[in-house]
């Protein structure tokens, strides 16, 4: 069976034209966690009880053997309302999100109890429910839809464009929005050489972190001899603080599959794997469904678009190993081995899965491919910078007002991202403060820290490399002044030490030593020698490790040492933690002059370390105190210091 894309698209378009309104409920992981599925169920109930027609799945009118939906569409003379789920809309913190089209109204933090009001006010009376609209925390302005919200306004969503709009579980909607046309073009109008050339000209660089030109990778694999080649989609997004691949797989899985099909065409592969980490069950389910639907409709399988070429996709779940994000380790994992990396060369392009030439691309890279082939490389190059064309998604998290998933052209400054899209830095209680910014950690455990002096640095592969950071997978963690940078370095070191596969000595032992050295510093046992050894070990691990995990493991240490050396020195020489986070270095005391003896602190202390009589100054027993800071939090007279 060969898919007839135009027919599918026009049938779907016809069915959709019969719908008057559309209610889109975000069903990304964040919104589901906040109860969006309950909101969805409530909408069905409320729309029905209001006597309105509702469609949850669009079916083509008069489709064979499908009388039920045809009658559903014709049930009443008034056009029905379509209710659909979408993938992640990026604005996770404000979820569950409900969008109403064609008005473009976006409701935030919708609860099931709000649904009846939305149905009455918006769907029946055509008015907005003002209390559910987003209010900009900076200007206090009420925003009706995404067009007015600064978080969305300043982005340029390209890869994420359809994420959060189309129903990820309906292949026809993807096709209706122009999906699989790029694959069709690649299979019916282009030769493998032409596909590689187009990709090369587009300048698309791998979004998984390394930034290797995709076209070059494909071309190197294309020229390898042999009939059997593989395409692997690397969906093992293990970087803590990054979730863009998850959102793409959940929100627009077909774009990834289409990207894989084009890659397969370019290199001459007939089989592919999507390797998804098992911590993402929803992504696994959506990708599996997308593969099955694409096969059923005739897009995937034998004789694609009548070209005589076939392509088969397998989906495999990872089993919880960060190192499997490294391409040679990922290949070992698919082969049923421990996920340990292999020295390169040979590169996977020469000898990959089961010794065959293999292309491995990241999810976001593959999702960009249909955009390049569909619209042409020249248009793709319009955005971004000369050496880093296109857009990049970032997971913006940490101490920032608007956390979530964003997409901006390469070359956008950090200031724009943190202050304009992110809405500014927040304190520990979540309030926006003008002067709270300390650093941004970018690129996860492989990346580095950027400081205030880098706020105007354009974000792209080369400029970040120049300051000792990297785009990595695109995690952006904003940190406020109450964050101890030694602790952050330790946090990443703990992570890489846990995840080191243990194959090479430098990574296995080096990360362990660096962790111990950081512990010494945080516990107040650090000396000048500790700092020296830390730096030397870091350089050695960077130089001598086998794979990317080890080579980049020291980056958080080296970049914090570079930009926040004073903070390390305060720990070592003054035995003081400037951010007040390292418990061993805290000395909580009560100022007797300020203490009114209200007993609040003594009551709140979980270990009974505070004693004193009513209306007389209290004291903290340092031997019992666990330095939790509860006393400082409750004290109304600011008498507790040192925590």
């Amino acid at each position, binding site marked *: 069976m060969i898919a007839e894309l135009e027919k599918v698209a026009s049938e779907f378009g016809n069915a959709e034209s019969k719908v008057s309104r559309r209610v889109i409920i975000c069903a990304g992981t964040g919104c589901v966690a906040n109860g969006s599925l309950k909101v969805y169920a409530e909408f069905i109930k409320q729309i029905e009880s209001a006597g309105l027609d509702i469609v949850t799945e669009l079916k083509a009118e008069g489709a064979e053997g499908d009388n039920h939906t045809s009658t559903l569409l014709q049930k009443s003379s008034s056009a029905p309302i379509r209710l659909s789920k979408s993938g992640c809309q990026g604005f996770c913190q404000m979820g569950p999100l409900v969008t109403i089209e064609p008005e473009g109204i976006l409701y935030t933090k919708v609860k099931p109890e709000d649904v009846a009001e939305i149905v009455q006010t918006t769907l029946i009376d055509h008015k907005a429910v003002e209390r559910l609209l987003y209010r900009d925390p900076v200007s206090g302005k009420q925003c009706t839809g995404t067009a007015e919200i600064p978080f969305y306004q300043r982005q340029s969503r390209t890869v994420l464009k359809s994420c959060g709009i189309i129903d990820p579980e309906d292949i026809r909607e993807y096709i209706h929005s122009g999906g699989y046309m790029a694959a069709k073009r690649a299979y019916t109008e282009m030769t493998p050489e032409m596909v590689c050339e187009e990709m090369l000209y587009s300048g698309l660089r791998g979004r998984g972190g390394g930034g290797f030109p995709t076209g070059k990778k494909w071309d190197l694999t294309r020229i390898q001899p042999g009939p059997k080649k593989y395409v692997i989609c690397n969906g093992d997004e*293990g970087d803590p603080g*990054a979730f863009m691949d998850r959102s793409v797989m959940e929100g627009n899985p077909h774009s990834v599959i289409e990207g894989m099909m084009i890659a397969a065409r370019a290199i001459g592969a007939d089989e592919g794997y999507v390797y998804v980490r098992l911590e993402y069950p929803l992504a696994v389910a959506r990708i599996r469904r997308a593969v099955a639907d694409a096969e059923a409709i005739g897009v995937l399988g034998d004789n694609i678009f009548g070209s005589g070429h076939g392509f088969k996709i397998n989906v495999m779940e990872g089993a919880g190993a960060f190192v499997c994000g490294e391409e040679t380790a990922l290949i070992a*994992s698919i082969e049923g081995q421990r996920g340990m990396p292999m020295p390169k060369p040979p590169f996977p392009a020469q000898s990959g899965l089961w010794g065959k030439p293999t292309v491995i691309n990241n999810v976001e890279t593959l999702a960009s491919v249909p955009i390049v082939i569909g619209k042409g490389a020249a248009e793709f190059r319009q955005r971004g910078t000369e050496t880093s064309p296109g857009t990049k998604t970032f997971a913006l998290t940490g101490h920032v007002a608007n956390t979530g998933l964003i997409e901006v052209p390469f070359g956008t400054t950090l200031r724009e991202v943190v202050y304009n899209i992110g809405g500014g830095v927040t304190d520990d209680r979540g309030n926006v403060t003008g002067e709270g910014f300390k650093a941004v950690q970018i690129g996860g455990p492989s990346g580095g820290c950027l400081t205030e002096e880098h706020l105007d640095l354009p974000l792209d592969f080369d400029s970040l490399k120049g300051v000792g950071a990297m785009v990595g997978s695109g995690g952006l963690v904003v940190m406020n002044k109450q964050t101890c940078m030694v602790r952050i370095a330790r946090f990443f070191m703990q992570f890489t030490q846990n995840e080191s596969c243990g194959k090479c000595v430098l990574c296995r032992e080096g990360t362990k030593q660096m962790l111990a050295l950081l512990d010494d510093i945080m516990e107040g046992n650090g000396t000048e020698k500790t700092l020296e050894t830390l730096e030397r070990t870091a350089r050695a691990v960077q130089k001598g490790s086998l794979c990317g995990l080890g080579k980049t493991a020291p980056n958080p240490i080296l970049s914090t040492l570079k930009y926040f050396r004073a903070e390390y020195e305060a720990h070592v020489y003054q035995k003081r933690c400037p951010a007040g986070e390292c418990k061993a270095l805290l000395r909580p005391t009560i100022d007797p002059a300020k203490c009114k003896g209200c007993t609040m602190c003594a009551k709140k202390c979980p270990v009974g370390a505070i004693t004193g009589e009513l209306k007389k100054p209290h004291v903290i027993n340092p031997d019992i105190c666990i330095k939790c800071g509860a006393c400082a939090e409750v004290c109304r007279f600011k008498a507790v210091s040192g925590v």
Partner: protein
Amino acid sequence: MPQTLEKTTKKLRQFNKVCEILDRYERNPAKLIPILQLVQDEYRYLPEEVLTYIATSLSLPPAKVYGVATFYAHFALEPKGKYVIRLCDGTACHVKKSIPILEALRERLGLTDKVRTTPDMLFTVETVSCLGACGLAPVMVINDDVHGQMTPEHAVALIDEIAAKEGKK
């Protein structure tokens, strides 16, 4: 006697399930990881005798199967509790103070870094590197339910709720 018989048939039945899984993957050693995943879904952990059985069936050395099972974080060689609580300690969750939540949970359940499952096999507390729901940090997952913007108090309240439902204090 009947009790022993029951035990034996139960065990046989369990191995039947393993055989079914092995057959589904045509006893292909390359499919070791998906096989272990399905077997673990069945038992909630990987019992030693099952690992040996899988090794024999796939004509692999037991050391290799054991090596794979211990390499990946998802595989458990010891039984887990009925409610597996996974606290995310990714960067976003960490800077938004996930550790105090972990400490509160361990305190409430009498668990430590080494002892992760309660003696009544009701709760297991673990940390995970990142759940990819960073916008809701800090995040905690109880079995498959994701709970966002957690606090130590809220986390303990959730545990108490489950314990009450299960009829335990």
